[in-house]
């Protein structure tokens, strides 16, 4: 009895050793594991892109053979999307959502543990294909048949890796929704939720709706190859184009699965450093929901060139254009939040403003490609490579990095090195533009994607792009150093950390206790975010 009382009193009790991580049901520890895993995969995928840029540094074939180059391109994408971006987003959600809504933990802590520990196994499956007969997947991350079916022994490993990743992210999504729907502190109404929580609810619904469709698609590939079905085999009455429809029905919502958490992060950062509440909170919620809803009706803009009827091309063109409206609402709301705010430019704010600028560049080139007639020129050129890297790298990754800088003092209790943080921002921003901006030019000039060699007319720009690529890759080592330095010590952070920070997470100590909000806080208009 007395022991139990003692146990309760000892608030910061945590398990020790490797068991703390293996069997963890604590949202903070699982969040940390997700983030560390994402960082490792970010460097694994980054190393692959360095191979790509080294090969493209000069025309001709230098370092790798074309098959290996193609697997670099393919696995780089799979690792970055499923290994770095999605786990980083889930990691932030795990860490922040319970302490933002005043919950003691996630609703289903054991499932939380499982959904994380599936990831290392899934990536072991995927990366083991490099050592197999026939090599790693090389037909592009989109896995279009019939090309992907020509993959050797690695093919079932690819399919099962995708299944596992899907199961993991669906479990993570279910957990987030179950948490937010059932475990909000008294007074934390839906319209008082921090916007990061809102973007994650919507992302979670997208995950639950889209990931199973991909799982179905790759299962059809599997049965086509091994069990004699003919879903995508023209000789058996199937159609390879149908896979593209199934894939992009998942693939387009997936784009928003990646970007919405980043939108959520910068919706927390910008008001904090503008010292003003978020402008148009309600419209932000509705805009995010509309983006998510519309994302299910635009998938065929990824495949304008397959030979659709004119009516179809027009429908998907207009539907695509319409997504620019809610996205514009968000961009203008962020700008209005900054308007006449007393702004300061700490590292998280710099990254958030970087997102605003450079995501818009990617958004505009996306609009260009949404216009059917001109898409025929851009399709499968470096222009599309420039477009999606602009939305992913300075759009999503910058958002996540901004979030890391923003919450790192809260997580560790120490301030990070502001000088190094700013240096990291400027090095990343300059190099990312050197890396991706010229891709627009060579794309418009006709350089195709996914080819290890190119015509000599593209040599100069590729040279510059590769230099930008190496610089960007090296700059990210700085992030690792800043994080390590911050974990090891530094100026102590206050509970509020940032002068303009509002919300439940900032009422906890820095670092927060291992078990927080065991008695739910009371939320009023005064203590809510908005």
């Amino acid at each position: 009895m007395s022991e139990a009382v003692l146990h309760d009193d000892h608030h910061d009790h945590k398990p020790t050793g490797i068991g703390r991580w293996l069997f963890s049901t604590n949202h903070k520890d699982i969040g940390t594991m997700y983030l560390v895993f994402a960082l490792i995969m970010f460097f694994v995928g980054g190393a692959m892109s360095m191979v790509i840029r080294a090969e493209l540094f000069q025309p001709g074939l230098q370092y790798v053979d074309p098959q290996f180059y193609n697997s670099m391109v393919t696995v780089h994408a799979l690792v970055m999307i499923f290994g770095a971006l999605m786990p980083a987003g889930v990691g932030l959600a795990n860490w922040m959502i319970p302490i933002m809504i005043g919950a003691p933990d996630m609703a289903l802590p054991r499932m939380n543990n499982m959904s994380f520990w599936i990831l290392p196994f899934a990536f072991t499956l995927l990366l083991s294909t490099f050592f197999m007969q026939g090599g790693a997947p090389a037909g592009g991350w989109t896995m279009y048949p019939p090309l992907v079916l020509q993959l050797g022994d690695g093919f079932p490993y690819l399919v099962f890796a995708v299944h596992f990743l899907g199961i993991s992210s669906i479990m993570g999504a279910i957990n987030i929704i179950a948490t937010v729907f059932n475990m909000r502190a008294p007074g934390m109404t839906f319209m008082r939720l921090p916007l990061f929580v809102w973007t994650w609810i919507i992302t979670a619904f997208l995950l639950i709706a889209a990931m199973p469709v991909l799982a179905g698609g790759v299962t059809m590939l599997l049965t086509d190859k091994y069990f004699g079905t003919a879903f995508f085999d023209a000789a058996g009455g199937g159609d390879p184009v149908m896979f593209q429809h199934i894939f992009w029905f998942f693939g387009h919502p997936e784009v928003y699965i990646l970007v919405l958490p980043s939108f959520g992060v910068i919706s927390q950062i910008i008001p904090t450093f503008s010292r003003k509440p978020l402008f148009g909170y309600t419209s932000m919620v509705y805009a995010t929901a509309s983006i998510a809803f519309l994302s299910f009706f635009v998938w065929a803009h990824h495949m304008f060139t397959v030979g659709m009827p004119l009516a179809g091309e027009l429908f998907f063109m207009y539907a695509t254009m319409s997504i620019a409206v809610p996205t514009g609402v968000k961009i203008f709301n962020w700008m209005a939040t900054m308007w006449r705010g007393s702004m300061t430019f700490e590292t998280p704010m710099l990254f958030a403003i970087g997102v605003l600028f450079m995501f818009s560049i990617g958004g505009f080139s996306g609009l260009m490609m949404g216009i059917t007639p001109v898409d025929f020129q851009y399709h499968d050129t470096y222009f599309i490579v420039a477009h999606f890297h602009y939305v992913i790298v300075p759009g999503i990754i910058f958002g996540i990095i901004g979030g890391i800088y923003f919450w790192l003092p809260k997580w560790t209790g120490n301030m990070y090195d502001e000088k190094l943080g700013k240096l990291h921002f400027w090095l990343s921003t300059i190099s990312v533009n050197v890396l991706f901006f010229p891709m627009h030019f060579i794309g418009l000039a006709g350089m195709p994607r996914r080819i290890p060699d190119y015509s000599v007319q593209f040599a100069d720009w590729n040279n510059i792009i590769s230099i930008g690529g190496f610089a960007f890759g090296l700059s990210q080592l700085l992030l690792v150093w800043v994080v390590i330095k911050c974990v090891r010590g530094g100026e102590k952070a206050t509970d509020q950390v940032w002068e303009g920070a509002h919300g439940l997470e900032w009422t906890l100590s820095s670092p927060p206790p291992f078990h927080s909000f065991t008695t739910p806080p009371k939320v009023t208009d005064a203590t809510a975010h908005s």
Partner: protein
Amino acid sequence: MKNKATQTAKKLGLIAIAMFGFGYLMVPIYNIMCEVTGINGKTGQISKSEVRLEDVDLDRLVTVEFDTNVNPNLPWSFKAAKFKQQVRPGEIAEALFIVKNESDNFVVGQAIPSVAPELASLFFNKTECFCFVNQKLAPGETKEMVVRYVVGSDLPEKITTMTLSYTFFKASEDNVAITKQDRTKKIKENG
């Protein structure tokens, strides 16, 4: 509270399972869309008795061109006896194709038809075709194959030329073709 969370999770899990099913549902939806709209140039099949009900349009002639392709996995040669022919809408026409097995083995092939422009495929129906079934050729065997078809007399005036394209694929024993003709037949049988 724990119980409520489990309830929410179960409901969401059901949605995920339903969406997995929806992925598979996209296959029949896609095929029906293609048949209704003529996307993909999928052609139809009708019986001879149905053809007799068609009015023959004596006022105009439509050019039908023939295009032949062989998938690289199939060691056959395949060509049309005549490159093109002129037909009256509503009338049964006949075209001849010649296929040869260039290998030393028995090989089974399956031809997949497609009609361009897409709009025309809605009015293009076959009464008899070598593409309805698998074709098995002995080593070195040459075979003449026939297709009987009718272009609907309700074909829009602006279409004066259409192309009937065939691609021969290798068909394996466990990959017996369930072609669109079978499906069309089923749809017709069901009313």
